[in-house]
Structures are given as structure tokens and as C-alpha cells.
């Protein structure tokens, strides 16, 4: 394909204009992305979780992950707090909030944010938020920079550090392949207590609100994930405070992309203004140099003229003085001669 310079510049121009328009529209209007309307989601009712780890086992089987060192029915694993890894996309942790008799179990996995930090951070667009709900990963383009892992506020993506030739980022897919077949996510299907409910996000929010209203003593009056980091597709109901069961309450409600929008927006401004500014400084510097050189020239000429005039005046003065000296000397000599003549006269 041959591209003329004009065409190329046209593209660049068009890209510049469209990106400015998009930014402007977002900044000037009150439009807000509230997530895809029909996206699916899961409601995790922490108060119903019994810590049986059947979801972990199901996830392992569905995703064909390697068998763990200790089997899934070994519940002593719960004694240590764990996180998701490249071999375990979901983890159940046990918490013992102060004052509670019973422990609380919480399942963690990718929360499938409405506006994911990983997708915003990825420089090859390996992550996509699908309109169906899952945040999916394209291993074919992943360079392995792991910025997604830095960006994720929930510490979910994990990396295959032990693979030399084909390491990938690993995380829950919300069982996207199973959803496409009309099946439930593996963990939801395996849960014996209905601590996990699958459905449309909009409807699950109503279910969750209904439960809080029906049992106000059982739940904290908050649906975790409704607004956290711009909202997530995984929603949580809890008895104890969320921060006491490992769910951070200091994340705020802004989507990750909003934190970097300002810095990204400054880029075209720098590209546009810096050349003008720097060329301007260069021009001013050159002009100053030129003016300084001109002024120096004028000053030198001036100084030369003045020195010459001075020299002439001095010469004239010196000559005058010399004339006077000469006259005085003659006079002196004449006087001396006269005196001598007079003396001689007196002696006679």
C-alpha cells in the first residue's frame, strides 16, 4: 500500500482532531459510563459462604489448572491468607472479625470492573471489557510488562514467572467460554449454599438491596462493587465491615482511567506548545546575541572615535605646552644673558 505524504498528514490531523473532540465531549458533558446495560455479574453473599472451597475446585477443573500441593478438601489451607496466583484464579480466605464468634469466609477472584484498570493500563490492549460482562485477556499480544498487575487495585492478575518462552498473565475469565455455551460460571455452579448468584448486574443490585432491606441486622448497608473503582461486575454483601474481611474500603468510586486522563491529556498540549516555546527561546537567544554583537560594534567604533579625539586634544595640549616651554626657556635664557651683562657692567 502506498501512502502519500498528504494522506498520511491527513490521518495524523484527523486522529488529532477526533481525540480532542472525544476528550472535550467527555469533559464538558455530564455523561458517565455506567457499564454495559445487559452485562452479567455475580453476587457474592459473604454471610452464606461456609468456606468449603468447592468453588476453588470447580475453577481448577474448568480452567484445567495444575493440581495444588494440598487437595481442595483440606481446609487447613484456610489458616493462611492467600491471594490469586497463576494456578488459582479464585481463592477463599477465612477472617475472624473482632467480636464475632463465627469466622467469615470470602471468595476473591477478578472483579471484572466496568472500566478496568488493567485494560486502561495495557499498552497493547490485551484486556477488553466485553459487553457481556467478562474482562477478557488476549495472550497473543501480551508483551509481559505486567503493568496490569501494578494497576489492578484488587491485586488479582498473576504472572507465569516460571515460563521462559510463553509466560502469560492469568486471571479469572468469568468463565466466558462457558457463558457463551449458556452454562453458569464453574464456581457459581459448584456453590452448595447459593453464596454465589449469577445474573444481570442491574437485577443482582436489586436482589442485593432486597436482602439488605429484609435483613438489616444481618448485612452492612452497602453493596461492595456497586461503585468501587467505578463499579465492578462482582458484587458483595457482608455482615462484618468490608475492610475487616479483606475488601479495601479506601479505593474510592473513580474508575482507574480517570486517574491518568489528566496526564494523558497533557501530552498533545506539550507536543503542540513545546516546539513554539523552544523555538521562541532559541530565536530570542540568537536575537540577543546579534544585538549584543551590534552594540559591541557601535561601542567599539564609538570608543575608537573618542580615543582618537582625546588623543588629538592631548597632542594639541602637549604641543602648546611645548611651545610655551620653548618661549619660557628663551625668555629665561635672554633674562640670564641680560643679568650676566648687567653684572659685568657693575663690576667694571
Amino acid at each position: 500500500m502506498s501512502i502519500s505524504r498528504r494522506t498520511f498528514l491527513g490521518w495524523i490531523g484527523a486522529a488529532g482532531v477526533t481525540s480532542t473532540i472525544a476528550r472535550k465531549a467527555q469533559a464538558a458533558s455530564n455523561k458517565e459510563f455506567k457499564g454495559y446495560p445487559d452485562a452479567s455479574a455475580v453476587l457474592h453473599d459473604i454471610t452464606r459462604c461456609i468456606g468449603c472451597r468447592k468453588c476453588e475446585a470447580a475453577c481448577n477443573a474448568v480452567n484445567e489448572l495444575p493440581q495444588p500441593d494440598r487437595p481442595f478438601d483440606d481446609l487447613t489451607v484456610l489458616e493462611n491468607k492467600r491471594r490469586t496466583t497463576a494456578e488459582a484464579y479464585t481463592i477463599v480466605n477465612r477472617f475472624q472479625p473482632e467480636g464475632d464468634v463465627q469466622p467469615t469466609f470470602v471468595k476473591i477472584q477478578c472483579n471484572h470492573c466496568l472500566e478496568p484498570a488493567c485494560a486502561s493500563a495495557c499498552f497493547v490492549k490485551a484486556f477488553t471489557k466485553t459487553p457481556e460482562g467478562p474482562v477478557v485477556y488476549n495472550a497473543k499480544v501480551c508483551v509481559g510488562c505486567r503493568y496490569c498487575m501494578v494497576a489492578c487495585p484488587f491485586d488479582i492478575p498473576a504472572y507465569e514467572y516460571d515460563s521462559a518462552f510463553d509466560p502469560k498473565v492469568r486471571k479469572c475469565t468469568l468463565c466466558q467460554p462457558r457463558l457463551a455455551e449458556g452454562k453458569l460460571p464453574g464456581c457459581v455452579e459448584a456453590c452448595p449454599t447459593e453464596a454465589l448468584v449469577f445474573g444481570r448486574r442491574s437485577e443482582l443490585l436489586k436482589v442485593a438491596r432486597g436482602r439488605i432491606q429484609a435483613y438489616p441486622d444481618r448485612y452492612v448497608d452497602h453493596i461492595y462493587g456497586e461503585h468501587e473503582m467505578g463499579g465492578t461486575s462482582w458484587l458483595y454483601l457482608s455482615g462484618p465491615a468490608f475492610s475487616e474481611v479483606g475488601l479495601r474500603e479506601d479505593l474510592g468510586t473513580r474508575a482507574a482511567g480517570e486517574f491518568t486522563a489528566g496526564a494523558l491529556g497533557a501530552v498533545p498540549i506539550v507536543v503542540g506548545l513545546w516546539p513554539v516555546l523552544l523555538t521562541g527561546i532559541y530565536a530570542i537567544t540568537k536575537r540577543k546575541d546579534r544585538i549584543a554583537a551590534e552594540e559591541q560594534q557601535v561601542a567599539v567604533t564609538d570608543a575608537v572615535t573618542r580615543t582618537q579625539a582625546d588623543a588629538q586634544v592631548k597632542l594639541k595640549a602637549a604641543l602648546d605646552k611645548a611651545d610655551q616651554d620653548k618661549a619660557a626657556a628663551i625668555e629665561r635664557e635672554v633674562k640670564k644673558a641680560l643679568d650676566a651683562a648687567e653684572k659685568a657692567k657693575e663690576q667694571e
Partner: protein
Amino acid sequence: MVNDATRSPQRYLTPFNVVAGLIVVMGLIITVMRFTLGLGAVTNLSDYYPWGLWIAFDLLVGVALAAGGYVTSAAVYIFGMKRYHAAVRPAILTGFLGYALVVLALHYDVGQPWRLPYPFLVSRGTTSLLFEVAACVALYLTVLFIEYSPAAMEWLGLKRARAIVTRLTIVLTILGVILSTLHQSSLGALFLIAPAKLHPLWYSNYIPIYFFVTSIIAGLSMVIFEGGLSHRYFKDKMDAEHLAAKADVMLGFGKAAAWVLAGYFVVKVIGIAADNNWHYLATGFGAWYLVELLGFVALPAFGYAIGVRDKNLSLIGWTAGWTVLGIVVNRLNISLIAFNWYLPSEDRYFPHWMEIGISLFIVTLGVLAFRFIVTRMPILYTHPDYDAH
């Protein structure tokens, strides 16, 4: 200008060469391990700490310390400070080698380095600040290569090519400043996306500005620091202009560094005030923050100011070294020490000795390449056949 004494066989076994040789051998062995066994075999990287020493030191510190190129060329060519002309070529060379090594180090760090061109060729993730960093670093490495090339062309006798390139000096300088402004600040902006992970004292909306300003400080200090080393070890390669310029450069750059450090101190304090983070100063991390702010920002600002006032070149030289160390401290703080600061100690990161080994290997490669070039090409002297540009 090839010195026969340094090329004779018995002079190869200097203590420096022996140590450098051992480091290179070690580096090559770790390199083979890294690319056959994977990152896990040679690093302590974890799912909590996906970025370790190779990003913190080799990338973040490396790019900051390579800022001397744009700072010096801007001062001389754009701001017209011709007194510092002798400092341009060494600074450009350091910058070029610095960026080349940063890119080399990235090949070790990313999981699939053969895909490094993907962000440009296959799938452009333009919402990512890392995309911007990658694009600017790639372009700027090219710019630095062209800026450095006249020295190589003079060495090789390519007069016509050199004449063409030197005519581009101003354009390349302006391009260099634009690209540096963008990626130096964007390296800091990378962390904007993780407000929940970086300690509030280090997290700030101003972090891109902090990174840009510290890159100027790093650039000025590296020119002084590296100039001091060159005067000690490559004095025989310098002509009268370079020998005479030493004091001028140290006093001028030292004065500039004192002012920029003072300004940086002020905007750092403004940052604490803007986020009302004063109460964190009373904590352990607060004490460490004050060590950075007072010990590595305020102290060198005074060191430079007093050194310039008293024309005390050795004080300026030591202050430059201290400031460079301060840049290292700052970048390690942001990417490692204050990152995931709340995690229990068993989940925190400390580099594997082989990670340190690779960082050392890469720095050694830089020093060897610098030596190879300055002992052959007109970096520390003006080539008699050519006019300065």
C-alpha cells in the same frame, strides 16, 4: 588519538578490567539462565511485586540519570550558553548509552521481549501511559543516536554525512526536549493509576511534574559527576578547551542544580499541603520521607549553593554524587519501598542477587562502552579537521 600504551597486551590486566571482566562473565551466565529458565529462576518478582529492581533501577533511575543529554544540549543550543559547549558531547554520549541500556534491560524484564515492537505494530494501547513512555523512549533513543553520530562520523571520516547531521542540531535538540518532557514525566505518571498502592506521601497528582523536575536535577548532577570521573581517568584525552571548561561547567551547572532543587523542594511541600498529608510525617514512612526530602533535596541544594558561592569545586563534585544517590533513593521509594507499603513483610520484595547481578552487568557494559568510545572518538576533544557545531 589512540594511545598505544593502553593497547599493549600487558596493560589489559588492570584491576578495573579484571573486575569488569568477571562482572561481564557473571552477567552472561545469568542472561542464559534468564532466557532459558524464565524470570522466576533469577528474580524475586511476585504477583504483589510485578516490578522489581530492573524497573526501579534500570528503567526509572536509568532514564533519569540519562537526562544530561537533553539538559546540556538545551542549555547550549537553545539557551545559547556556549560556555558549556565542551560538556555537550560527553552528555549526549552518556544519554545515548543510558537509553540504549534501558532498552536492553527491558528485554530482560518483560516476559516476551521479542514482542517489544507490538505496542507500535500490532495493537496500540493508547490509553496507557506506558504506551506513551514506550513511544517516546523509542523515538528519543533514535534522536540521541543521531545527535551522537557526528562523533562517530568524524572518527570514521564520513565528512559529508556529518555535514548533513550537524545541520539538524537545533531540530534534534528541540525534539529531544519535547520527548524528554513527555516520557520523563510519564514515568512518574505510570503510578497515577495505583493510588491505593503507593503510600500517600509519595502518591500525588503532581508526580509527573516531580519526575520531570528531578530529571533536570539528575541531568545536571550527572554531567558534573561524570565530568569529574572523566577528568580523573581520561584527562589525557582532553584538549585545552575541555580542560579549561571544567570549572565553568561545574559552577554553572551547580548553580542551576541549586535553584532547581530549591524549586523542587517547594513543590514537594506544596504537594503535601495539597493532599493534607502532614499527619503521615509523624509515622515511620514519614520519617523516611523526611530523610529523602531533607537529606536528598534540601541538603544538596545548600551543598551546591555553598559550593558555587565559595567556588569550592570539590564540594560541588561531592554534592553531585549525593544528588545522584538521591535520585536512586527517590525512584526506589516510589516503585518499591513505598509501593504496597501496607503489605506484611513476608509479602514484600527484596531483589534476588541475580537481579542485582544483571543491573551491575548492565552498568558495567555502559562504562565499558563509554571507555571504548571516548578513547577512540572525539568526545573529550574537538577533532582538528572539523569545526565545532
